[in-house]
């Protein structure tokens, strides 16, 4: 077990280092322009004295590295500062919205992951025949379609014409789970369609890779049915690459949520981020940007750890 633990620990340490570096990068990203926060609060007509006073109050006169460490320390202790636009505490606002965003991403994952794996298996079973070709065609289309096209087509068809689901996904605490699920049906469908294709294709590739092994041939020669060969013999050995792909797509899901939330006016983190970018509300943008990046990095980290742990060659090194 020794080398495995070391490998995993090293990967996690690298991930933490990466998170730190990303926080620096996000901080630098908002410091590119000489124009500053004080100017954007007071507007162009502000007097120089008023600007100087506000700069001093906000601590903007301090060098950039000092402001960075102050911000980082705040983030680590759960203090994300106040929004410039409305003076609200960012941490409280985010706490509420992060839950909503994860709720949406979670249900999208619950639908998309099993569906993608199942369709991947079907594509392998009928490889190079019409179900496989249909699936590759849909894949090509789905990487070319912007989220908002899928989103508005679904709203137009199921929300407006057929009136099956609400076209605006409003959720609040007073709703039961079933009501909430009904409200997020369309956004979940969009997110599912966006990540489905890639996961399906990679599942197909992973299983096809395993299908070339000698033991698969043995299983086929024994006279097992095609589905049994795939399910019992190929699939278990393809789990590790599949889990990897699933995690990478979940990471993408958390980012894809930004656009989907705007389409469906869903009260989540993405909507919050986009609104405040337009308002040039730097503290909010820094905080939400960091959280999005962190979730993305952590999910990628989990993917790597799973790949390490599930690889028998690393578990029993020579």
């Amino acid at each position, binding site marked *: 077990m020794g080398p495995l633990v070391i490998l995993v620990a090293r990967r996690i340490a690298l991930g933490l280092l*990466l998170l730190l*570096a*990303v926080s620096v*990068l*996000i901080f630098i*990203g*908002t*410091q*590119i*322009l000489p*124009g500053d926060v004080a100017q954007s609060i007071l507007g162009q007509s502000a007097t120089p004295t008023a600007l100087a006073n506000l700069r001093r109050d906000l601590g903007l006169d301090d060098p950039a590295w000092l402001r960075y460490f102050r911000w980082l320390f705040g983030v680590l202790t759960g203090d994300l500062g106040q929004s410039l636009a409305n003076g609200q505490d960012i941490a409280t606002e985010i706490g509420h919205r992060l839950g909503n965003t994860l709720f949406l991403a979670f249900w999208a994952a619950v639908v998309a992951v099993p569906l993608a794996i199942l369709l991947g298996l079907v594509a392998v079973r009928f490889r190079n025949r019409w179900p496989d070709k249909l699936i590759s065609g849909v894949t*090509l*289309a789905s*990487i*070319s*379609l*912007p*989220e*908002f*096209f899928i989103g*508005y*087509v679904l*709203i*137009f068809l199921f*929300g*407006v*014409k057929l009136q099956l689901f609400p*076209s*605006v996904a409003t959720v609040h605490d007073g709703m039961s789970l079933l009501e909430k699920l009904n409200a997020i049906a369309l956004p979940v469908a969009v997110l599912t369609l966006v990540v489905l294709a890639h996961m399906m294709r990679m599942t197909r590739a992973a299983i096809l890779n395993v299908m070339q092994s000698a033991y698969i041939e043995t299983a086929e020669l024994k006279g097992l049915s095609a589905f049994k060969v795939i399910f019992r013999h190929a699939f278990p050995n393809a789990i590790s690459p599949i889990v990897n792909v699933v995690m990478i797509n979940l*990471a993408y899901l958390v*980012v894809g949520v*930004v*656009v989907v939330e*705007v*389409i469906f006016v869903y009260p989540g983190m993405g909507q919050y*981020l*986009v609104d*405040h*970018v*337009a308002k*040039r*509300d*730097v503290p909010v*943008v*820094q905080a939400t*940007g960091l959280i*999005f*990046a962190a979730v*993305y*990095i952590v999910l*990628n980290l989990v993917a790597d750890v799973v790949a390490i742990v599930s690889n028998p060659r690393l578990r029993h090194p020579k």
Partner: protein
Amino acid sequence: MRIPVSALVGLVLTGGFFLMAVFAPWVAPYGMAEIVGDVWEPASAEHWLGTDNIGRDLLSRIIFGGRTTIVIASLATMLSFSLGAILGFSAAVAGGWVDQAMSRLNDLIMSIPTLIFALVVLSVMPVTLPVLILVMGLLDSTRVFRLSRAVAVDINVMDFVEAARLRGEGRLWIIFREILPNALSPLVAEMGLRFIFAVLFLSTLSFLGLGVQPPASDWGGMVKENKDGIVFGIGAALWPAAAISALAISVNLVADWVLNRTSDLKGGRGG
């Protein structure tokens, strides 16, 4: 050389879109910002796709919007390519700690989702066309860097590069005269994919209100302008969104074909 049907369709459509972008003022039946009717008129003989949210001809807007989308996406792709390829080749040729430092920095930037990073930067930068092109090009050049470095590392150890080194050629000669011509075919295939990414990325930014600013408009911006009609059953926003999808699919079909062709020529000169 036989061209498969799918690639042919892709080529014709892509060519059509580019021609439309070039000749927009001659093709479009009405002006870009010309108000010619009521709000959201249905399709008719005068207005093939109806009118938009303030009564402009939707088809004309789509033709002019396509020009904006295609021009900005092309410029961003060119920027990301020249920057990413030159830096990628340099890293591969330089090797050692220079290569390590550049590659790790690249990994770092790639570890932040592109959209999130762009939003962070756009929260402090003024949203103008040069800034948009710069942000899109710079962020996307990380992908080109990774590919061109990988390709160049393989070429860098070949005998003809070694020969050039021994006869005392400088780094610039090696990058532009030895590596670039041999790395061109995988990069060209990638260019199509990067262009699609630029189109989708620009459309997304404009859709979020952080891309092309009104009254000028690209396809993503037009979706934003007309999206409020959707809940009343008015499909005006679907047309520009469909145009984005059609452009992306046709370029994809061409890129797929180029990619298949170049990967068939394993070890060849990649003509």
